[in-house]
């Protein structure tokens, strides 16, 4: 079994589904959940800082039938924080 993929490995423009959060840092855990990084939702990397860290992501509703609903601000986080988010990648092509 491959080790689970994490958000810091997602490339610019790629989409993925969030499978869970693993971190020892309780505050980080709470913060990520509060901001909408919850299992089942989709996430996309929008932008990276000049040194590659931090990154900006956008979270979205999970249902593939929903139109692209952009009802959240972008979220920026450090790569170390993105490492706490487990994902399963999806194709970038429209689905």
């Amino acid at each position, binding site marked *: 079994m491959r080790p689970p993929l994490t958000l810091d490995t997602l490339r610019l423009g790629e989409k993925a589904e969030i499978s869970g959060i693993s971190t020892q840092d309780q505050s*980080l855990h709470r913060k990520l959940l*509060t901001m909408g990084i*919850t299992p089942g939702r989709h996430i996309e990397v929008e932008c990276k*800082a000049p040194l590659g860290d931090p990154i*900006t992501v956008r979270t979205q509703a999970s249902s593939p039938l929903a139109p692209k609903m952009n009802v959240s*601000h*972008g979220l*920026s986080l450090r790569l170390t924080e993105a490492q706490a988010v487990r994902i399963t990648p999806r194709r970038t092509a429209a689905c």
Partner: protein
Amino acid sequence: MDSQTVADASSTRRSLESSSFIPRIALAGTPNSGKTTLFNILTGLRYKVANYPGVTVERREAELDIPGFGKAQLVDLPGIYTLFGHSIDEIIAARYLFGEPDSKLKGGISRPPDLIVAVVDASNLERGLYLATQLIDLGTPFLLAVNMIDVGERRGITVRAELLSRELGVPVVLLVAQKKTGISQFQQVLPQLLASKANGGEGRAKFSWCPSAEFRDIAHEIGVLQRKQQLGNSDGRPLGTASGGLIATIGVGLLSGDITPADATVGVRVEEARKELQSKGIDASQFEAEHRYRMIESVVRRAVAFTSEQIRDRTEAIDKILTNKFSGSIIFILIMWLIFQSVFTVASYPMELLDTLMTGFSRVVSGFLPAGRIRSLLVDGVIAGVGSVLIFIPQIAILYFSIGLLEDSGYLSRAAFLMDKIMRRFGLQGRSFIPLLSSFACAIPGIMSTRVIPSFSDRLATILVAPLMSCSARLPVYTLLIAAFVPNRYLFGFFSLQGLVLLSMYLLGIIGAACMAWLFKKTLLKGLPSYFVMEMPPYHLPSPIYALRNVWDRIVLFVKDAGTVILACSIVLWFLASHPLTEQGEQPPLRESYAGTLGKAIEPIITPLGYDWRIGVGILASFAAREVFVSSLATVYNLEAEDGESESLIAALRSTGQDNGSPTARYTVATALSLMVFYCFACQCMSTLAVCRRETGSWKWPALMFGYMTVLAYVLALVTYKGATSFLAL
């Protein structure tokens, strides 16, 4: 509302008016949702701002006169994202909303508010609704205000108020607070809601997001236990007027690990419950967040319309320019330079004006009073002291205004985003940049602006090292010593030696700050939570009025808290410098005052650094303000105070002989370098300490600041002096 309910409401209102019940309305919402703008519109200028006891979180409240109802109290809670957060703002807000156990109050607990108004940003609906639905669960009468619908429309989002209201089961109004759109409708709904509370309307626990009845029941049970343990009640029923929803919400927070159990009994039960739920496939730590967001998704799908082509406003386009490697960095440097120049240069005009005013005022007062101790106390103590507080206001105002504009426009997050990686190498973070930059002008506004840093440990690290950024008050000291002792030579033809020494002092401060921040993070501040996760709101044209409001609040609080400490210290210093009186009852010369005596007393300690009692007096006097060093030295040499830059003081310094009368120069280049290093690192500004205490809420941090800087200053000045005399034969 049907006519029956309206009739009930008015009769209840009539009976209420006679019992003078003043309901409390809590205004809650996410940061940057326009909540503050709404508060300002509703209250005008009539609000009070103060701190919650024991912490540095601010509380704004005002009494409102609601047409159709009567008096109510409006409380503006700090911006929060959740009731289960770990930041001090979120903990304070949650305590207010849950009601806090307090043995001195009736029922043993403070009353939760009577009405909650939640403000959410239409362009950030999901996160806003995350908080709003948590608040709805509490069962208190509730009103949802969807603000910034204009921004939402620009992003292709149209909120259907009636549908949203039906989905959530609460009244909804749409607003553009900044343009006062929808305010009248908002004010019409308020009386009905306040009256319904008076009817004793405590909602059943809604919890519509929760797919598991078992989870809800366990949460309720644990909430009851927590309250029981907090209130010391033994008959098992929760005291106070907490509704089922509030109790269950507390239980959810306990299960997810975000609320601390009141004691071991609760703690044990929570652990058991978690295991029980785990065996049924429920992960309590994320159950609520996951399912609440699922519910929000379906609510949004039903109550919000989207245009078929996703209209992207200019935010993404602007971000391409502002956050990329090339143009992003250049624009960033330009904006930072602009802010720095404003705080450094533009502020100097009002500062000079204030200075002139204070001097004029002292002259007037001196004219009225006969010479003597009272006049001296008033003029040199009180007026000088007050002046030294007021002098900071222009810089604070300009810095806060600039930050207010940056924050409102959305650029502040981008600035932090760009700087974070670099700052992190030194134990700081992206948002520390602007406070530290401002500290090159003056650490007072710099430290106050660390409010933009949400994580306490990062904020503390920034505050502790901010004074190491060589502030403008050190410049007269550097300038004097360099002019007197550093030869006016040029390296390689065009590098001025004097200029290089000056630059080195600034660099020394920066390196010192980087090292100390890194050290603090590794030792003292280790383990305290510090995350960067941060929203990037859409850009919009900043409102200068919003920024000005912010400035006013800050200045009021600065004067109230830090101002009193600074004034007290000024008076103490005045006393030391002007007593004991001579036999004729006049002010003694400086060398014979208490201050001078102290200078002589510390002479043995400072001799290894190359100083004598004269410099000792200067150093002690610098506690009022660093630049006082120059004028106090002039006084020691019996020169006029304005001769600080003149040839006479420089000549006097160079020609000071040894104590034993020999004409060999007492002060050398080594002395000057050592003294400059001392000034670079020493904590000599009592105003800084006062502001540090205000921003951290305790005296232990200013004490640490004073301690580490004094040690650093002494050791490094010693090393500099010994090194310069031994190795460089200076």
